[in-house]
């Protein structure tokens, strides 16, 4: 992730983009997402998004998803001059039970 952030500082991504978003409450980090905007298909990819296990069920994930959508939508408008076509999200393995089940 550090490497990708450094790439972002240069011209590596071109019209595409890369985002690491942290959700915080005070000094505490309570969630995070990593997402990409891909200029060619005008689409976003959410690589992962999660909130702190002890705080799940409070809406932090939804708020983080809303914010992630917002930055991807902003990329589409700024870099392609149009609305975002789609967001592709990687999801957990549906065959695996949740860790806290």
């Amino acid at each position, binding site marked *: 992730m550090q490497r990708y952030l450094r790439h972002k500082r240069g011209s590596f991504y071109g019209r595409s983009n890369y985002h690491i978003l942290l959700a915080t409450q005070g000094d505490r980090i*309570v*969630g995070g997402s990593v997402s990409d905007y891909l200029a060619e298909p005008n689409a976003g990819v959410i690589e*992962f998004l999660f909130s702190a*296990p002890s705080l799940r069920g409070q*809406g932090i994930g939804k708020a*983080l998803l809303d914010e992630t959508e917002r930055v991807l939508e902003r990329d589409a408008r700024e870099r392609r001059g149009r609305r*975002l076509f*789609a967001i592709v999200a990687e999801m957990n*393995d549906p065959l695996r039970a*949740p860790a806290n089940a």
Partner: protein
Amino acid sequence: MSDPRNDKVRFVVVCAFDQSLCGDALGVMYPTEANESLVGLLQHEIAGHAALGTKVILPAGENRSAHHYLHPDYGVEGPSLRVVPRARARRKILSNALDAGEQGVLSLARAARVVMRHKSPPACTFEELAATRAGLTALERFYRTLYVAEFPDPRRARIAREHAALLATQAGKLLRPE
């Protein structure tokens, strides 16, 4: 996906398989065709489903369109077929479900958890990280406190195994002095 009816972004659920083996050994299907990109396949599949918000299950089986994967360079083609032996059992389960259609796939999904709807959103602030000293420090803190709990660091797992093996050897010598 842009929805002209209400001008909002919606999610379309797409089932695909990647080669990262991230989390489990489920990612067993790889491209057999050159010049086939995941993004192109997804666009094609999504475009073929006019009703927004519906589930789109990419077809699977032994035909050409069954093989999708996510390359780190976002859909640029990479190495060809590589089957991971330990994943074959999972692949069989998945193939059977896919043969049974969408209901078969959904039967594998765990039940959605019911979550209380909160009247007010949580008081969060959001920070987008950049490659600054403060940004990299925050990233390190995020990685240590949250990320590795969700996605265990494979290097640390290997080091832990090696450390445990070393300790076991030393303990054995203590119990059975030469």
